[in-house]
């Protein structure tokens, strides 16, 4: 969390300092196309991801490179990915949501109860989708209200929700796995469009929507403000509390969507769905360059973060590593990836700052630094 304490302060005076300097990848997008902007900022991550893929190809050859395998990776990434998008908003907004896994479970269970499925059978499977999303949204609302108005630490509030939601899911499902009966539902969601699985489309859609919302709308800009400096946001007339609630509802909604995706993928609703999902998503978001203290982060980074983790376990499986060895390797690779990311970032800063300073004055170059540069 305080990682960036160091940074922001650290940035006035660039100097040796315990706190990790955040890669510029975490600089909030201020205009600039997706490609030039976000990807550029996440260059280090991209490189790390590319390396990972190369390893995959070298070790598993076509088995890795095959379309099927790529789709497999994407399908797996989809569920975690959708939730991670919501999580990105919450974290940039200065919060954290530990309840996502439980909410996915609760939504999936609620949407697959006999009652719900009965109604769905009569009306349309959209009812199940609606139920899942609604349950997620409401749970998110509760999180948000408790945090924004009850002034509870987000960590505690959502931890409580984690326990409560899972318990509730178990009670509703009576700990049995609920089978999805509606074939149309399954056909729709487990199908493909243009050879790309529906789930992947959904992920793509959510990601793009998230990117626009974060970088191109007032809501997104205010999210950065609320997370970056809540008091300043308040003084600027932003209704911080209301906005915070909205963020958690958003996260809840993504959980609902993820629940639907899981239901399609597994044809079941279960109180065990999404176990430890919170850890996976937060990890993906943070490795994607979003600061846990809030105020900075990118959707693109998160997406790459998700891909890195899913690709990692895929490569492991392809290479038939013992799961213990996998764990160790995973740890090492994560560290390596982030370190690489930082070095690249640093390198990029060097180059950038050596030419036109202004945008990256972040390193605290004094006015006097480059007297020649005339004003625009």
């Amino acid at each position, binding site marked *: 969390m305080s990682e960036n304490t160091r940074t922001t302060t650290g940035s006035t005076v660039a100097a040796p300092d315990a706190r990790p300097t955040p890669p510029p990848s975490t600089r909030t997008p*201020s205009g600039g196309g997706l490609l030039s902007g976000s990807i550029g900022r996440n260059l280090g991550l991209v490189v790390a991801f590319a390396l990972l893929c190369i390893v995959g190809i070298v070790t598993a050859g076509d088995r890795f490179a095959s379309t099927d395998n790529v789709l497999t990776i994407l399908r797996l990434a989809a569920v975690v990915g959708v939730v991670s998008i919501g999580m990105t908003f919450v974290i940039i907004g200065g919060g954290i949501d530990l309840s996502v896994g439980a909410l996915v479970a609760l939504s999936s269970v609620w949407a697959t109860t006999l009652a719900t499925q009965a109604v769905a059978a009569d009306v349309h499977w959209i009812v199940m989708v609606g139920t899942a999303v609604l349950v997620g949204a409401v749970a998110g609302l509760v999180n948000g209200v408790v945090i924004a108005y009850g002034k509870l630490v987000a960590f505690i509030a959502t931890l409580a929700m984690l326990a409560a939601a899972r318990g509730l899911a178990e009670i509703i499902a009576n700990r049995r796995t609920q089978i999805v009966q509606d074939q149309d539902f399954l056909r729709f969601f487990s199908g493909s469009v243009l050879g790309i699985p529906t789930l992947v489309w959904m992920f793509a859609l959510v990601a793009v929507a998230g990117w626009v919302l974060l970088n191109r709308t007032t809501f997104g800009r205010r999210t950065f403000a609320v997370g970056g400096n809540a008091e300043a946001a308040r*003084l600027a007339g932003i209704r911080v509390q209301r906005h915070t609630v909205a963020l958690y509802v958003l996260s809840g909604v993504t959980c609902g969507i993820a629940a639907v995706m899981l239901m399609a993928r597994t044809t079941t609703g279960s109180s065990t769905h999404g176990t430890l999902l919170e850890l996976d998503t937060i990890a993906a978001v943070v490795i994607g360059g979003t600061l846990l203290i809030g105020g900075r982060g990118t959707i693109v980074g998160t997406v790459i973060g998700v891909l890195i983790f899913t690709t990692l376990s895929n490569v492991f499986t392809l290479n038939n590593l013992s799961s213990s060895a996998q764990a160790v390797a995973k740890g090492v690779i994560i560290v390596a990836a982030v370190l690489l990311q930082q070095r690249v970032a640093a390198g990029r800063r060097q180059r950038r700052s050596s030419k036109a300073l202004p945008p990256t004055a*972040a390193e605290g170059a004094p006015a006097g630094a480059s007297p020649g540069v005339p004003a625009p």
Partner: protein
Amino acid sequence: MAGTDLSSPLLEMQGIVKTFPGVRALGGVDLDVQAGEVHCLLGQNGAGKSTLIKVLAGAHQPDEGVIRWQGAEVRLTDPQAAMNLGIATIYQELDLVAGLSVADNVFLGRERSRFGLNRPATDQRATAALMARLGHPEIRPGTEVGALSAASQQMVSIARALSQDARLIVMDEPSAVLDNEEVERLFAVVRDLTADGVAVVYISHRLEEIRQIGDRITVIKDGATVATGLPARETPTREVISLMTGRTIEYVFPQRTERVAVTATPVLEVSDLSVPGRFSDVSFTVAPGEILGLAGLVGSGRSEVLEAVYGARRPSSGEVRVDGKRLRPGDVAAAVGAGVGLAPEERKSQALMLGDPIYRNITLSSLARFSRAGFLSVRAEKAAAREQTEALDLRPVDVDREVRTLSGGNQQKVVLARWLLRDCRVLLLDEPTRGVDVGARSEIYALVRALADRGVAVVVVSSEIPEVLGLADRVLVLGDGRVLADEPATALDEHRVLDLVMQGLPSGATHTTEGHVA
């Protein structure tokens, strides 16, 4: 006072009371502001100025009191409400979002959007225009605010206020981080505004500014109005001060002690120090008991010089010696160990643990003195801290209070107290009196001089040239990262210094953007 009708003031605040846990910040303050006037709000550190204007901005809810806007009573439930009335505020503690761009900050909360989508281009154009008006075209709308200097950030919040086309603009110590040039430019803007009938509430501890720009003065002391409606230009300074402080203070600098040891071996020797892109080949020495002043424009690299000397920045070349011993470059702890102290310029980010009690902030660099085998004697700590707070007339007296709850000026005093407490061989002060009231200033000057007389070598950076000239024995004028002059203070006057600074400007830079060309 362009055509104001005194009968119906633009703003009336009556009997405003605001209590914080453990503190009565405002105990019935009155304020009335006419359209088109510059109304100066004066008071000691902790008098309640910022609290009052926060109430006016809807940021704090008053416990009692009425606010009338154009004669009609209003309730300012939140900042939005105040803005809607046409009240814009420049807060003392720059409340900007470091992670957002300049343009984003200027229009935060009032973003223009079409179909829910932002229009960055529009905002950026508008911002660029505002910055040009403030004479800071070099501050680009796309730049991240966190990357800007305190001075530049101040400009952003001013631009923010201007962008609101407000009827009343409140400025809480806007000049604290600015130098003369920039203050002049700010005043020009203020005059334009008042000419258009906009009212300005102006807070500052620099009384000469009040003379220049002010129309009427309201003085508050300990959370109560002690005088209001005084004519800004006529009222003699002594009277204002005694109203503020309840005593008479000669706002003068302490006598220089004559034995400024030119012969004595210097305590601090800086030779050919360079930080690429910041400054180059800076050399100077400070003798024991000598006070060296660093003058220059904002961005001239004064702070960087201090930071480099202190080890907070790693110099590319050159060396620093204290009592002849070479300091390990880029190692603050080593410097502190060698008896060097730095009171940095940005108190909030660089100096204070806002959540900690006052005494802990003060004793942080001197813990060794209060600990035996690593174990602290809190009692001794507090006693020592109290001595300092009394010496600096820091309020509140209660050293257990969290620094966060202190007024701006009092926070600055805490920073100074830390280094006054630790008996240093070399003391580096960057803008030591930023936001400090007149009363405390003279006390600080006296303390610094007293330290010097005890053989400490002092280096003072200040954007107020009179302060440099008055306090220092010798003045180093920096410009564009180079030493332009190194002369005894007595041999300089304000104009001479300014001229020197101008010389230092790179040819080509226009008069309006000097020192700020990014």
